[in-house]
């Protein structure tokens, strides 16, 4: 809702959210402080967390192997809590590109990337990424060579997915911090690839 100073009625979902929250507080199930803290914690999570994981995998091959074998455990090693969810890390190679979608809702590795972008939840992205991934990626400005294979991952149940992009050329000798800066959110969803400049 735009706050331009004039009165605007709540939308259906805003009304439902306020009603539910007030009931939960009234019944003593949660406190207002807990709600505020949870919202703050959610907003603190950003794609920088995922970028740190990717950069570590780029500089440390044994870490990369651990990440591909058991994503949740490898993240915990860096102090990132992935709760009860299981993280599947999928690796881009010169012959395979990976892209993630949730056709049923908007499942997303929030612990690594924060709040999903609006387009990730759109009907168009969700329905078209599974059936015409090449056309969708081209709309993001990413043209995948005909000879390359595309693996689309539909996040339909309890797994969450992170794409491990390829380390771009021209980044030899870069430290983890500098590498992490080129790993954007979109690279880790699979709709972009990192660039060194």
């Amino acid at each position, binding site marked *: 809702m735009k706050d331009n100073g004039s009165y605007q009625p709540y939308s259906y979902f805003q009304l439902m959210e306020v009603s539910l929250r007030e009931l939960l507080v009234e019944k003593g199930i949660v406190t207002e402080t807990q709600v505020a803290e949870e919202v703050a914690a959610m907003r603190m999570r950003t794609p920088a967390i995922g970028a740190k994981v990717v950069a570590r995998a780029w500089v440390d091959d044994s870490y990369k192997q651990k990440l591909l074998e058991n994503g949740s455990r490898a993240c915990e090693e860096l102090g990132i809590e992935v709760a009860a969810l299981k993280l599947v890390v999928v690796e881009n190679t010169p012959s395979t590109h990976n892209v993630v979608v949730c056709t049923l809702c908007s499942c997303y590795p929030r612990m690594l990337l924060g709040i999903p972008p609006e387009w990730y939840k759109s009907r168009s992205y969700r329905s078209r990424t599974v059936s015409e991934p090449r056309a969708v990626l081209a709309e993001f400005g990413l043209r995948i060579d005909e000879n390359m294979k*595309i693996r689309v991952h539909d996040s339909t149940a309890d797994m969450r997915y992170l794409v491990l992009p390829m380390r771009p050329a021209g980044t030899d000798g870069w430290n983890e911090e500098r590498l992490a800066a080129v790993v954007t959110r979109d690279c880790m969803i699979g709709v972009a690839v990192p660039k060194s400049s």
Partner: protein
Amino acid sequence: MVEARFKPGDRVKVRKAYPLGHIRTPFYIRGHSGVIERICGAFGNPEELAQQRSGEPKQPLYRVRFVQNEVWPAYKGNPEDVLEVEIFQHWLE
């Protein structure tokens, strides 16, 4: 926990059924055949959890790999393009 009936590499077919409820098997993949990519573990059955029941016994969850050309007749792309979907065991045969 229900025991896993399939292993990676097994060919499976997704049940073509349309029951009501909270079902995590997308419509577009029902009736299609694929290959088990990995076993993800066992998780509470979402169809039960959505009804405020326990979700027990836990159901094995798989990642199943489908060939895009077989799923979408008009698919444009590399014939090796694949689609991987998480599917619970009770939806596989």
